[in-house]
């Protein structure tokens, strides 16, 4: 028997397919996803300014695309992801100060970030509805 056969299995690197699902892992993946959402949001803001500067027709066309069912769905997702990203920035700042690494604390702050994203998006869109944005 060779020496290699006696070596016990080595621990694996963190990976989507081998890691047990848990809240901090989900937050890490969501944070990566929120970067793409932030990227798209920044481009949409630039596009909005361009449409506004281009005049009435361009602005109405741009807003019609954003106001379509698919556009509204994307905007709702971007709202949730942006608010999650902002909350996550606060979480990371505490990490930078050396706080919040206790597993229970990390789980709680992770859940809080997801809650801020989801509940915040529902509140924002509820406010938009009550302010007459869809009527």
């Amino acid at each position, binding site marked *: 028997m060779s020496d290699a056969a006696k070596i016990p299995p080595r621990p694996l690197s963190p990976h989507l397919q081998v890691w047990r699902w848990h809240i901090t892992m989900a937050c890490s993946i969501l944070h*990566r996803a929120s*970067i*793409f959402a*932030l*990227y798209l*949001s*920044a*481009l949409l*803001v*630039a596009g909005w*300014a*361009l449409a*506004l*500067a*281009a*005049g*009435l027709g361009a*602005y*109405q066309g741009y807003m019609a695309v954003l106001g379509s069912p698919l556009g509204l769905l994307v905007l709702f997702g971007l*709202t949730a992801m*942006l*608010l999650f*990203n*902002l909350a996550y*920035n*606060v979480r*990371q*700042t505490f990490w*930078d100060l050396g706080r919040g690494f206790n597993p229970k604390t990390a789980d709680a702050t992770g859940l809080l970030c997801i809650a801020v994203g989801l509940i915040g998006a529902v509140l*924002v869109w509820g*406010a*938009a509805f009550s*302010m*007459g*944005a*869809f*009527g």
Partner: protein
Amino acid sequence: MSLRTPRSRALGLGASHHGVGHFIVERASGLLMIPLGLWGVWSALTLAGRDYLDAADWIAHPVNAVLLALLLIAALVHAKNAMQVVIEDYVTRFTSKAALLLLNVSVCVLAGALGLFAILKAALTGAF
């Protein structure tokens, strides 16, 4: 045979010493995004469902124009640096990585230039 010590050789390899600057810019822009992002969400709320003239009036206000420009720049700087890390993490082939990194910078710089020009034009020349 080289007379250089292993330490001397190692000093010229590895990280190119941009890491700390990247990290600080990412943290600073992330913190700046908190007030600016919340203001942006609030502004979008106030403009949702309003028409072109309302939007033109809104951007003609100096505070709105300046804050929108700051929001755009902070978001693009933050997003560019974040996307750069994603590319560096997942793309290993040198040519693909270099091409994507250049594309990332180009998209963000172009969006920033066009966006800033549009904000200034809309804010200063008003609605026609």
